[in-house]
């Protein structure tokens, strides 16, 4: 296609979109567009055709209609903090940024929910209600900057989802704009809306079903008490035993986080915490009614000691507790202090395999001549290996990418998953075939096709091989592209 033709087309689309969202909220300048070339995953940048920032559901509807008429793909985006390239633009796409839609619309503490727009920042949900003793449970480490819309797209978790569940367990309703510009409301404050649980299909669909413009979230009353302790261990073997022992004792902690030596060094460098440089640290929260919490905290500490803890420390006040958690939550970024470059992986293994997997990762890293720092949600087996490398050394980045992939395949081999909370996005689509059969993927794509048959929204993500939906369900008809030998049919 001649370049000038594309430009004219894009100019015309930009003019139409600007008429909907306002000149100031339609970006076509190449320098400004470059801001949106990637999300939290910085490699593999793609410059979008245009970026728009709509201010309302009505504007989103108009934007979708215009993009559809122009035959242009749409990539929804929240704060752009995702770590799997889920918001990476598709070539030629319009990126729809929801960050201007950040109103809290309604708070109902009688029934414990809040209705809000997708651009609201995760932590701001809790801030809006904490004065009255309520909070929003899912707490991804990026919670001070990530948006609820992005959390819904990725089904975000966080340290405390061990006890409280993921985003999907806390979304009561959503307003969704479909490819045809239809607006549908799913769920609501009453449970058990008759029909298919489309809301469950929507949460975690990585922006591939439509654009969410309103969300109703469940709020929880703050627990009466929280007890936190930090235990140090000679190695991850003893720490892994402690985790297994705590779970086997019937304790459901709010969170159990594990960090290895490298991750401890990084967190210390970033926060100035006086943690000892031991083989492994466990940071654990138990919360709930006071007596229950005191009992379980005491049991858990006893189990950690029996498993070989070197030292167990309990924060003396809330400030010290927050500092401990800051050390954990800043671990990803902190690794930047000890390595010029690093990649964050996100695999899941059966919890009982922790120690074995860490040893295996150590062996694989040594073989690749690289270092791996391990930070993870030990209670649910969600590993975040941070593969450290120096991009200035020829070939090192490629080795790091290969090592990351090998770690994910190890997770799958052990019965785990290629992602516990970061999503598949662009980065891990290639690994989906390691975890799922072609039939599994085809079946998941049926859901996509029901919502978005033209693959308008976020095409090219999640699925390893882009394919087409049949034009319509029913008797088989070959798609024109299939006849031309360009694509396979679902």
């Amino acid at each position, binding site marked *: 296609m001649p370049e000038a033709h594309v430009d004219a087309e894009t100019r015309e689309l930009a003019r139409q979109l600007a008429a909907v969202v306002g000149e100031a909220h339609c970006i076509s300048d190449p320098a400004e567009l470059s801001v949106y070339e990637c999300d939290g995953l910085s490699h593999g940048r793609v410059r979008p055709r245009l970026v728009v920032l709509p201010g309302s559901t009505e504007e989103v509807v108009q934007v979708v209609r215009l993009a559809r008429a122009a035959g242009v793909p749409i990539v929804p985006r929240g704060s752009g903090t995702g770590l799997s390239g889920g918001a990476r633009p598709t070539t030629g796409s319009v990126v729809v940024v929801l960050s201007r839609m950040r109103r809290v619309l309604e708070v109902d503490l009688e029934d414990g929910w809040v209705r809000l727009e997708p651009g609201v920042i995760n932590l701001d949900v809790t801030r809006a209600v904490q004065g009255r003793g309520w909070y929003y449970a899912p707490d991804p480490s990026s919670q001070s900057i990530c948006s609820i819309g992005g959390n819904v797209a*990725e089904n975000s*978790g966080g340290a405390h989802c061990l006890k409280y*569940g*993921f985003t*999907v*367990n806390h979304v009561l309703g959503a307003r969704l704009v479909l490819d045809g510009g239809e607006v*549908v*409301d799913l769920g*609501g*404050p*009453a*449970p*058990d*809306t*008759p*029909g*298919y*649980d*489309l809301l*469950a*299909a929507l*949460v*975690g*669909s990585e922006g591939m079903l439509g654009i969410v413009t309103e969300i109703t979230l469940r709020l929880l009353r703050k627990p*009466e008490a929280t007890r936190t302790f930090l235990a140090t261990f000679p190695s991850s073997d003893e720490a892994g035993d402690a985790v297994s022992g705590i*779970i086997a004792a*019937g304790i459901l902690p709010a969170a159990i986080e594990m960090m290895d030596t490298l991750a401890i060094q990084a967190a210390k460098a970033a926060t100035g915490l006086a943690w000892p440089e031991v083989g492994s640290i466990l940071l654990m929260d138990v919360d*709930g*009614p*006071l*007596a*229950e*919490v005191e*009992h379980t905290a005491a049991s858990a500490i006893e189990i950690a000691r029996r498993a070989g803890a070197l030292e167990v420390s309990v924060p003396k006040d809330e400030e010290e507790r927050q500092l401990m958690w800051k050390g954990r939550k800043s671990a990803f970024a902190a690794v930047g202090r000890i390595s010029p470059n690093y990649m964050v992986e996100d695999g*899941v293994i*059966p919890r*009982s395999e922790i120690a074995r997997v860490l040893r295996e990762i150590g062996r694989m890293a040594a073989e690749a001549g690289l270092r791996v720092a391990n930070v993870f949600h030990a209670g*649910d*087996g969600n590993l975040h290996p941070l593969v450290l490398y120096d991009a200035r050394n020829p070939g090192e980045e490629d080795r790091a990418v290969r090592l990351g992939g090998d770690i994910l395949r190890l997770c799958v081999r052990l019965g*785990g*998953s*290629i*992602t*516990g909370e970061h999503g598949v996005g662009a980065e*891990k689509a290639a690994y*989906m075939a390691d*975890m*799922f*059969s072609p*039939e*599994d993927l*085809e*079946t*998941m794509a*049926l*859901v996509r096709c*029901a*919502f978005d048959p033209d693959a308008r929204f976020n095409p090219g993500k*999640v699925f390893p091989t882009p394919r087409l939906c049949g034009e319509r*369900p029913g008797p088989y008809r070959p798609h024109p592209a299939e006849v031309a030998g360009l694509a396979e049919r679902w």
Partner: protein
Amino acid sequence: MTPLRPAQAEDSILGVAPRWVAEPATVEEAVETMRGCARDRQRVAFVGGGTDLGVGAPPAGLDVVLRTGKLARVVEHSPSDQIVVAEAGLPLAALQRTLAAHGQRLALDPPFAERATVGGIVAANAFGPRRTRHGTARDLIIGLSMVRADGVVARGGGKVVKNVAGFDLPRLFVGSLGTLGLITTVTFRLHPLPEASATMTVARPTGAQARAVVVALREAQLDPASVTLLAGPDGPSLGVRFEGFGPGVRQQVERLAGLGPALGLRFDLLDGAGAEAFWARHELARTSGAVRVRLAAPPSAVAAVLEGAVGPLTGGLGPGWATFDPWAGAGFAGGTPTDTGSAVEALNRARRALVALGGSLTLAAAPPGVRTGFDAWGAPPAAIEVMRRLKARFDPEGRLAPGRFVGGI
């Protein structure tokens, strides 16, 4: 293909008789059966323990009933990972016995545990009083394998609790009533069996008082496993159950008892036998009556639910029972009406009241006469068009449990 046997009267679903019955002994045989049905364009419905067949509408037509009863194996139980993979036809009670030997349970407690199968529980979204804390199948399912209408075998989710790889097929199948595919295995996350449990009751509370108890529990930051309002022939009572470690349960019992005077209520702590009897009555309330309905409303509307829905139903369905979880906003009512006309009128009134509150009323059991005058699902939900498109993708020929689901799906 698994041999089919000619259907008997007891193989009918809501009065619609299939021609054939298949009872595959293995997942492979079930796949064969599904392929045969696809090849021969047979309409097929799935039956587990048959305990919730009254949910939804009668099938529009039926050729084959596929019974999952012989698919009853525990495929994998990993106590240290707190997960279990079970075949669809495994009865809940059998599963719980296996898990209990390791100090664990599936935190789902719908009625008829000896017969209700895990696949059926998922398909019908069946639940019990522990919903208050643990939610429904949607909150506990982590993986599922199934056979599609075209005989293709597929799997979603996995064997680990935390997993966001791919679209969420397991949760989509919860409550889908066999209209998207045959569930062959289900993977659940498990919870430890509680060390201690205690049930407290309040006699004859009003709806407003039940609501006040929920607010008080929340404000006191207590963590009940079950809260239920049980209305029966002897009048209503409210049950609150705590589960956990001994010290935690004891303290919560004391705290709740201490809240009584301010609420003007007396909380009685039941002994073991008393608690057992209370929850047995609750189960009876869930399962008795020729007409049974599921109720849903915002939890804070408990008084309006009692007045607008439970009141008319108790009148119109004859003497019966009702339960409502004022924490979760879900309940049940049932009775055996002597007069179809007044039963239908009561159902309509109750549905209107719940819909006005933002909730719903759906049929869980009813004789044909009542069904003639009263739609099992009510007005289709807002997203019905997307639901139809979903059904058309999974089952383009409309052969799986046709007509059983909302909007005639």
